[in-house]
């Protein structure tokens, strides 16, 4: 684990009902970590609830999406001199018990992605959504030096080099905060590893059950992938030639 205090960054948009529990659970498992809630233009009491619980709160004036919220968190980490940042969702789907493994994984990698795909996982996807995930995973794994089985996971940690990079460049497009950011990291020579995590779901009947929605997801995922791959090529030409 990198020396110094880690920062647990929680992007939150109208999560007043779950944010309190997430903060207290994070504090229970990581008592030494600083907690930052990036309030992404919430109209409910997310920000005040988080502030009352003693978390640092950065409030964006309007909703900018997870990508923008995370870049804000990386800027905060960089300026505050934090050497490690872990992203945790505000809806409670990520288990803070996994935080320790995400942080120790940074000893040998710049980014550690919590993967939902492992033998003990309860996570299941099917249909076009699965094809999209396999496509994204295969493409990113080929670019990386080790496999990335779950590139769309938002439960991940970043070390000092990744913080430095993401503070200046973090994509805000659809899937940019997950897939796009990994491709930028790989291109910049950062090492990505993964560790198994548990994820909870608060609702059954996920939108992935809807075929049309899944097809749309596949389309947007492919577009996002093509865009990041082309972006990478362009930059390679500019930087190395």
């Amino acid at each position, binding site marked *: 684990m990198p020396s110094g205090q880690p920062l647990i960054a929680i992007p939150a948009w109208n999560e007043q009902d779950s944010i309190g529990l997430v903060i207290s659970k994070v504090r229970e498992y990581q008592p030494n970590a600083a907690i930052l809630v*990036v309030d992404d233009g919430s109209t409910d009491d997310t920000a005040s609830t988080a502030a009352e619980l003693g978390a*640092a*709160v*950065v*409030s*964006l*004036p*309007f909703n*900018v999406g997870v990508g*923008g919220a995370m*870049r*804000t968190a990386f*800027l*905060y980490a960089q*300026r505050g001199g934090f050497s490690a940042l872990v992203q945790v969702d505000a809806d409670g789907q990520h288990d803070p018990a996994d935080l320790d493994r995400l942080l120790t994984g940074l000893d040998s990698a710049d980014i550690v992605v919590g993967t939902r795909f492992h033998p003990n996982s309860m996570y299941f996807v099917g249909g076009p959504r699965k094809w999209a995930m396999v496509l994204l995973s295969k493409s990113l794994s080929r670019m990386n030096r080790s496999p990335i089985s779950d590139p769309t996971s938002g439960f991940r940690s970043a070390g000092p080099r990744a913080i430095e990079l993401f503070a200046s460049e973090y994509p*805000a497009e659809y899937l940019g905060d997950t897939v796009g950011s990994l491709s930028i990291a790989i291109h910049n020579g950062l090492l990505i590893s993964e560790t198994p995590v548990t994820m909870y779901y608060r609702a059954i009947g996920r939108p992935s059950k809807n075929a049309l929605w899944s097809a749309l997801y596949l389309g947007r995922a492919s577009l996002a992938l093509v865009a990041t791959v082309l972006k990478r090529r362009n930059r390679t030409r500019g930087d190395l030639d």
Partner: protein
Amino acid sequence: MPPNLIAAIASIVIFIFIFDLLRRGVLKEKYAVLWLLIAGVALFFSIFPGLFDSIALFMGVSQPVNLLFFLSSVILVLVTVQFSFELSRNEARIRRLAEEIALLREQNDRNSENNDKH
């Protein structure tokens, strides 16, 4: 009223309208120049319609009006793409500013809290 006159009047009206927007500072110069140029070309050809017909015939377009439609759609597409580009860039800039404001506000709150303690 001859069609040429209608076209010429329309061009002049657009000219005056754009100029007025520019004068009031509502329209930025770079956009004003673009529209003034388009209005100017339209005015020119409404005064000399024969010239446009000759150009069309020279290019092998049998119906000059088709060339007109083709050119106007090309120009409009280019203008719209340019707008999409600037819109995307401005969106990225606004988002960047929002992030910076959020960080500054947090820092400011923290500073004033510290000052209260002293």
